[in-house]
């Protein structure tokens, strides 16, 4: 089975404005004991700066995975996603959209914008833990991710 076991740590960028959700994500990752480094930014513009390593983000790594909330201040998740997928150096990073909305139209639109997958935030914590487990299982174990050298 192809895997990423031999990699030291997975860098995850969480783009989320609600501190409650940030904490929940952290807790859920703790719960499943994922060997990962979690970077957190609170809005779309910050996230974009992080990805382009601008300003204070000059020394951050390129993330292996992006967890993207949709309703963000300043630049919302849809705009950011569009920007990411337009950038040659960023478009290979898998973007997982996390949203409260289960509206089909929202879902369709996000896939049109080339989201790698769309997940609804579960209403309870246990559901959230399950979700994180699933993400880890699929994106960090099953799937072969592009090498970082691709991302210039």
């Amino acid at each position, binding site marked *: 089975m192809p895997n990423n076991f031999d990699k030291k740590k997975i860098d995850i960028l969480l783009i989320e404005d*609600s501190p*409650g*959700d940030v904490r*929940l994500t952290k*807790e859920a990752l703790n719960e499943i004991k994922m060997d990962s480094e979690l970077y957190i930014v609170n809005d779309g513009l910050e996230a974009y700066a992080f990805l382009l390593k601008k300003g204070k983000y000059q020394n951050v790594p390129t993330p292996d995975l992006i967890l993207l909330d949709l309703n963000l201040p300043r630049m919302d998740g849809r705009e950011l996603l569009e920007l990411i997928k337009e950038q040659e150096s960023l478009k290979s990073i898998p973007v997982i959209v996390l949203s*409260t*909305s*289960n*509206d*089909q*139209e929202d879902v369709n639109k996000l896939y049109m914008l080339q989201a790698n997958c769309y997940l609804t*935030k579960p*209403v*309870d*914590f*246990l559901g*959230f833990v399950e979700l994180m487990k699933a993400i880890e299982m699929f994106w960090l174990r099953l799937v072969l991710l592009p090498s970082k050298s691709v991302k210039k």
Partner: protein
Amino acid sequence: MKIFQKLLFYFLPISIIPLIIVVSINYASSHYYIHNALETHLSSINQLKITSFNRFVKTNTYLLESICQRPLVIDNLVKMLDHQRTDPEYIISKNNLIYIHLNTNVAETGGIETFSILHPETGEIIASSDPSLIGKFKENKEYYIKGRQETFIDQITYLINEKRIVLHISSPILTPSGRLVGVLVGHINLNELTDIIQKDTNSFSSQETYLVNKAHLFITLPKHTDNLNYQVPVFTQGIDNCLAGNTSVEEYNNYLGIPVIGSYNWVPDWQLCILTEVEQSIALQPTEQLKTIYVILLFLIIFIIFGLAVIFSKNFVKPIQILNKSAKIIGEGNLDHRINLTSTNEFMELSQSFNQMAENLQIEQYQNDVMLKELLHARINLENRVDERTKELKIAQENALSMVDDLRVSRNIAFENEINFRTIFEDSPIALLEKDASELKVFFDKTYDRKKYEMDEYLKKYNLEIEDKLKLIKLKHVNQAAIKLYEAKDENEFMQNHYKTIIDYDLMLKEEIIPILNGETFIRFEGAKKTIKGNDLWTITNISIPEGYEYSLEKILISIQDITPIKNVQTELKIKALELEKSNQELESFAYVASHDLQEPLRMVASYLQLIQKRYTDLLDDDGREFIKYAIDGAKRMKNLINDLLQFSRIETRGQSFSNINLNTVIEEVKLNLKEHIETDQATIIFDDLPQVFADYGQMIQLFQNLIANGIKFHGTQKPIIKISCEEIKNNQNQETQYLFTVEDNGIGIKQEYYERIFVIFQRLHTQNEIEGTGIGLAIAKRIIERHSGTIWVESEEGVGSKFIFTLPKKKEVKNAK
């Protein structure tokens, strides 16, 4: 011989005029050329003379100047000036000058006759080749004054006393240091000048060249004028023009009165006029000869043309004379005459045509005779027929008179009908009017020439006149009902104020008048009017034209039905419906936004409660754990409620477009979705062959899923059986075909008092503990059906089962489809 004369008349000028023109041009150009050459010749002779004379003067000037520059001459002169006249040096120097330098240079003929040296200060002649001149003073002479400065050539002078023409040249004698030591003067005898001027100019025997001075006196004598002398002034056109300062070539009479061509030049250096003249008779002799040759040639050609014309015209006229003669013979009536012409040209063809014509004339004359006879015959026939027709007409007139009588009788019958009609008219409960539009009809017929009345154009052009024109319609009768409807006091007031009831004249013209004018006999329309008191009225108007009045429009019957109350209600309803729709939309968008935004905090509450439950459960007592459990439970239910509300609100706002849907497929999909429930409760779902409907596919699934799930959920003691059936019915209101669907279960049933309530959102008949659910399923079902223009209701018997019945339209168009 008319043609012959004409031919000559035209031929001669045609050939001669160009000939004359050509000859004249030729002659003129030759003359011009000769004249021109002559002029050039004469003026070049003048130039030649001037040049050679100049050369003569210049040669002598050079000689004079060269003597002035001789060092010995200068030396001697210095010595003379520096010594007394009595000193031997003075005399030696003087003699040296005279014998060595002056005398040796004197020319025998055609040159400087005398050399003299003048004292630089006094102008005294101190040395000269002519000893008689020594001691004379010339201090006033121009050649002395100018000659002190530079070489000077004086004007040619005619010395009257001596009868000599002289010219003085002078030049200063200067030492190398620039000291003026004398003026050398040369004296030229110009009696030789005549020879120079006359020399080598004998191109013509009569040609001569001479000089004239400003006083009109000859300076050199002309060739042939030995008897003339210098003293007599001469006046000719050439001399006069030349002395005026002109240089030209002209024709004029010379000093002897002989016509000459003369070239004259004014020579400003000499202040003289030089003229070269030649006698015209001799100079222009070649032109005269040319003229004679041309005239002879011209006459010769005219003679030849004349001869040719005579021959040609005679040849041409002869056949015409023959034709002329033959035509005269035929004209006199001799149609048997023919022409015999033996020739191959057009005259032969002409004679043949002529013969043919004569033959045709013969035939035609015969036919004319026959026709004349027939015409006479026909005239007799016609007279007979006219007599017969007159008789027939008399009979017809009698018949017509009897028909008029019949008409009178039938008119009486019509009058009786009219009385019956009046009675009905007056008593009718419906408002009735009778109008007469015959005048309007006449007006339009006149204006529009019976074409189809396309009034749009008319409306544009005569908009202001419409009211006037419509007043040509006369209101003849109105009944009591009409008076009442229009709120008039009596018939009279109504008649007078009838036009107050019309609101829109253009519309009236378009909807009533034009169709009637175009031959419609029945019109029905709905429209706004006003009563005489000015109140609004909404009516249905029927206009009909009784048989027989279609063209005259003398009688138009109008019935008016008042639908104002109905209209008012309709308007109110429309407004209400609009308001309702608006508030509905607002509600929907509110519900959508609210439910969406409510989810976030709710999720926080639920998640963190759960985290507490998970992490700190050991720190809580039983009560605490129970409370948290309820709190989590409540949050979850609230989440469900919000989701349902969201779903409910999306029925209108997020509905998909309609398409043709096979309901059998829909039920199969629902069965799949409910697989778990069906298996758990061992439910059976039975359905007939269901039809296709025009609907939103997703909503159809939701509808049937909610109804079937309800049937399963609210099952009684028996295993649930759900039956779905369909039939076609007619809608009572609009007679459209509909489908009537029934979803029947064998569940617990519903009390009749709850029949309405179950379709209201979040209304539940059971507690959460009994049966789970938010109470939205049926509300959504109802809303979906309403969106599809259908209705849903329930029929039920407690303990036996419920029937959910709903309709969907059969036709494809569904109102409110989004």
